[in-house]
């Protein structure tokens, strides 16, 4: 078993252990989860350090590292030919940073679950199942395998929100589930369509191999998704339709405006660790899917649709920021800020310039651990007084100085203060988008300028929240009782927060730690698409 498989299936071992151990040992579950995720994180870190930046990834298997290929399902379908499904996994400059990020966020989530008492067995088991699924999504190179992991991911999340969530948890869980399912069901249709359009050049059989799908030469002439085919559904060319359907599936995850309304509800109702995973990893699956699937398999469609992608990105940035400004619930503010920050990812990807796409990738990574920290910070206050209404707090800096310090750093890091990672991401999205018109990828300059207004608005809502909740004379809704309950950060909480914020600083000052790994893959991706312009 290769390292990548080990990374994916380690949580499965933890899951089995947790399920098999009797309930009387439920105190050990969190240690098991912590041990396995810690090992997973170290393993991902080791793989990251071993990865050489020259791997070009994207559409060449030779550009991937840690590749494992096993034939999994072979079925003779008679007239339909041979069914060929492989267990094909590998990592390139796009997926490896996200794998490392996921393992870190999982670690944070396990740390945030430390006081989880209720149904601990089920909780940690589901958490580990989710862990396995996301690792699988980021590694799978076979579309069938990808889809399986993608669907497996939904199941634990539904229960984690629906059972361990807040007051309105059933509503949030079902909304989240149906939204995502809505996208993925149609994705299945496209997968089948692609399967019948693409053949493995070695065996001549139809294939689910995503890399083969990225090569125009592997399409059967006259097949539904063949390049330049005249197939159309309701007047939309087949390849554009495939792109749109897959884009919607992943755009729901990002999420884009107007497909974002599951996110505030899911975040607000989910328990803190699940919010951390949602913001830290799940949203990245959307961005990753767009890169790996939509843009790589349909480069021609993405080259012609990128104006719309950019527009959606700009709308998400501004609309999310304005919504964040209007919220009165601390957690909802953070949730909407995620919509705004993920809009930068879409805008950067749409720019089709190396700077913009790299900026988008960097923004995803940076947003991963920054939003995880932000949700954790909201959780801190909610744990103590079970309230997070902004106007119920004032002057927290006087009674919780350490907490305020961490909040201030996380806020400033998120609003793009230079020296922190979000700045690099956002600045290069803006620079790359601005450059797009010179390169001729069809993204107008005003989109860069409009996007930069999002940077301004993020300062507005973060600083306003800081002013309202943390500064001024201390005044709390729950008066004396709250004064006692609002203790400053514990050591455990600081142990979780400190590395994430330190990482934001590290990547903000040394962005080459990420760029060196992803440059070759990003350039390959950009070439793949701009060839189609």
């Amino acid at each position: 078993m290769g390292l990548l498989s080990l990374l994916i299936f380690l949580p499965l071992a933890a899951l089995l252990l947790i399920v098999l151990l009797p309930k009387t040992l439920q105190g050990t579950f969190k240690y098991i989860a912590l041990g396995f995720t810690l090992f997973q994180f170290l393993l991902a870190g080791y793989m990251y350090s071993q990865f050489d930046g020259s791997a070009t990834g994207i559409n060449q298997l030779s550009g991937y590292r840690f590749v494992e290929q096993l034939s999994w399902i072979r079925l003779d379908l008679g007239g339909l030919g041979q069914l060929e499904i492989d267990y094909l996994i590998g990592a390139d400059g796009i997926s490896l940073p996200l794998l490392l990020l996921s393992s870190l966020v999982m670690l944070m989530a396990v740390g945030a679950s430390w006081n989880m008492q209720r149904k601990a067995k089920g909780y940690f088991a589901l958490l580990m199942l989710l862990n396995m699924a996301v690792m699988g999504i980021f590694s799978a190179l076979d579309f069938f395998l990808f889809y399986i992991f993608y669907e497996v991911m939904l199941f634990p999340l539904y229960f984690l929100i629906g059972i361990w969530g807040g007051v309105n948890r059933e509503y949030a869980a079902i909304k989240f589930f149906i939204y995502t399912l809505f996208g993925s069901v149609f994705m299945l249709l496209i997968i089948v369509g692609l399967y019948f359009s693409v053949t493995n050049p070695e065996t001549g059989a139809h294939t689910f191999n995503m890399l083969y799908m990225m090569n125009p030469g592997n399409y059967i002439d006259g097949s539904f998704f063949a390049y330049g085919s005249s197939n159309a559904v309701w007047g939309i060319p087949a390849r554009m339709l495939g792109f749109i359907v897959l884009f919607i599936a992943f755009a729901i995850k990002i999420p884009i405006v107007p497909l974002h309304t599951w996110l505030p509800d899911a975040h607000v109702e989910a328990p803190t660790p699940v919010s951390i995973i949602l913001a830290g990893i799940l949203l990245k699956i959307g961005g990753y899917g767009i890169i790996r699937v939509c843009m790589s398999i349909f480069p021609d469609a993405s080259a012609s649709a990128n104006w719309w992608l950019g527009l959606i990105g700009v709308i998400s940035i501004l609309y999310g920021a304005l919504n964040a400004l209007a919220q009165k619930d601390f957690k909802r503010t953070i949730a909407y800020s995620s919509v705004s920050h993920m809009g930068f990812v879409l805008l950067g990807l749409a720019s089709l310039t190396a700077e913009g796409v790299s900026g988008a990738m960097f923004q995803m990574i940076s947003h991963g651990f920054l939003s995880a920290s932000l949700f954790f910070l909201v959780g801190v206050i909610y744990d103590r007084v079970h309230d997070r209404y902004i106007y119920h707090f004032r002057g927290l800096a006087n009674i919780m100085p350490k907490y305020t310090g961490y909040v201030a750093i996380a806020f400033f890091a998120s609003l793009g203060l230079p020296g922190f990672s979000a700045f690099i991401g956002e600045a290069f999205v803006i620079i790359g988008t601005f450059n797009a018109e010179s390169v001729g990828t069809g993204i107008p300059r005003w989109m860069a300028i409009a996007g930069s207004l999002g940077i301004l608005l993020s300062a507005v809502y973060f600083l306003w929240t800081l002013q309202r909740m943390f500064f001024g004379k201390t005044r709390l809704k729950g008066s004396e009782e709250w004064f006692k309950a609002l203790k400053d950060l514990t050591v455990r909480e600081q142990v979780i927060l400190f590395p994430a914020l330190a990482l934001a600083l590290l990547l903000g000052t040394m962005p080459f730690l990420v760029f060196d790994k992803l440059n070759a893959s990003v350039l390959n991706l950009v070439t793949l698409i701009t060839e189609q312009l």
Partner: protein
Amino acid sequence: MSGLPYISPIYASIVVVGLPLLAFLLQAIRGKKSTSGLFALVSIALSTLISGLFVLPQVWQEAPVTATVHWFTIGDSVFTLGILLNNLSALMQFIVCIIALPVHIYSKAYMKGDPGIHRYWMYLSLFCFAMLGLTVSKNLFMMYVFWELVGIASYLLIGFWFTKEAAVAANKKAFIVNRIGDIGFLIGIAILFSLFSTLDLVDLFGNEGVFAAGLYKDTGLITLAGICFFLGAMAKSAQFPLHVWLPDAMEGPTSVSSLIHAATMVAAGVFLMASIFPLFNANVLLLMAIVGTITALSAAYFALCQYDIKKVLAFSTISQLGYMIAAVGIGVWDAAMFHLATHAFFKCLLFLCAGAVIHEMVHHKEHTKLDFDPQDLRHMGGLRQYMPKTFVLMSIASLALAGFPLTSGYLSKDAIIIAAFEWAAQHGPGYIVIPIILVIVSILTAFYIGRLIFKAFFGPIRIPQIDQQAPHIREAPQTMLVPMIFLGLGSLFFAFSLNPLSYHQAEILTGFSVRYAFEEIHSLHLVIPIVLTVGALCSWILAWKWYVKGKYPLQANSLWITRGGEQFGLDELYKKTFVNGTLALGRASQWCDKHVLDGLIVHGTAHVVKSLSRAIYWVDKHIVDGLVNTVADTTYYIGHLLRWVQNGRIQNYFGFAFTIILIGIVYLIFR
């Protein structure tokens, strides 16, 4: 400096920048224990020494020294970290050090006993690091990084007393207004990057750079880039109409106001304009000249209407920054830098003196437990008797601000105004408005600063007292006086030029040796200084009559004064339009989210699906199932009817049998 060992100015300047960073980190780690400010003091003292001994002398009038290291590659574009040491950057670095050092020493006494003192020193070191880094950055990306870092240091220090509502409102405002400028800066960077694929200052603006090679500058994009960078400078250097944050920023400690919001950070915009001067084409330069002039005039007027001693000085700073920007606009960025240097000294000193006065006023307030505003000029008066040294020092600084002969301000202000006349003469009659306004502003400046001095130090004592006891006001302590005396010396002519009457021998101007685009007019060099000096003297005589002799002819409540004090409602206008507008937009999008996207579409779809399933259920129940049930019911009924046949009574069975047989017989008979 032959007696000193040679140290590469690059390494020396890295140390200059690095020391405050080290101090910041050490103080951040030590946290609350770090109250003495020792790290901050030592680091800035060493930085000043190194900058003064090993950087400036070795760079001044020499070829620029640069060093570049690779930072990161993104796609194919390489981004570097670099240090650029030329006359401009080395001078700016030294000015920052030499101003920061006395302010640090002053703070030792001024901030004594504050419960948050550990944060104060930490933030101050952070500011010094960012500001010093800004001065020597070799590329615009790095400069942007430090540009925002000084912004955050300023944010932290304005809101230093975070329990004060006004302070936390002010720091938010400062940061957000500066963010508007930052976005301009960022877009400017994006434009230059997309045009030239480099952000290196030397490659772009150096002697062999892109712009020196005679690039055609009148394109839309280069104009836009110029305007974008200028927007950045407008926010940072508080130019009209983005100046609104600076008066509010006075909520921070006075020592902070003097260092950051008067002498150094706010001048960063001017420094940026000087650094990238070749970028600007004639249109952008004219825009700068106009904005600078409007700023100078409006702020001088607003300064006249203030009663808060710090607010007067804040508007004065804005007005002087307007001078500098106007100077850049007319092409004499060397004069702008000269004024920046002289202004740094005397404006810093003015704030420190004001701080000393406020310190004593607060002391008196605490002692007598009376409730009054210790910063209000109307409560001062006659302080000359109690604080003679402060009075002398503040007077020197005021003379320098007014541009009186023998002071440094005289030299630098003349340099700007004379150049402005020469520039106007070159361009045409309409342009003469700008230099004339600058002259008027100069006289207004003399008047408002005279008003401040007369109101605070002359006339009767107006401080609220109990039973006519002597007020508890004493001279500032030694620790505060020494830095003030140092700055006072720096406000005199010999600090910058050995010739007290002509700016031509000023070291800074000769050092930059900028070639002006217009002819020198010799007669102006005699006329302008005389006009300015006489104008200043006249204004002081008037001010003396009004404020000391009490022959005040104006209505203090007149609309021109009260509204001027509120900047004619500019803040309210911004609040009503931009702030409330943004909030309304936020609420509107929330409404849209809740009622349109979620309410109409998501819940609507859910409702439709639910209704549909209910309808199908009805069909299922009543039609599909109904049909099935009808068949079943029919079968059942028939079965029910036939059931009584099988009732188990033998008599009945015999009866049936006989009946059938009977029917059979009847059938057979009648067949």
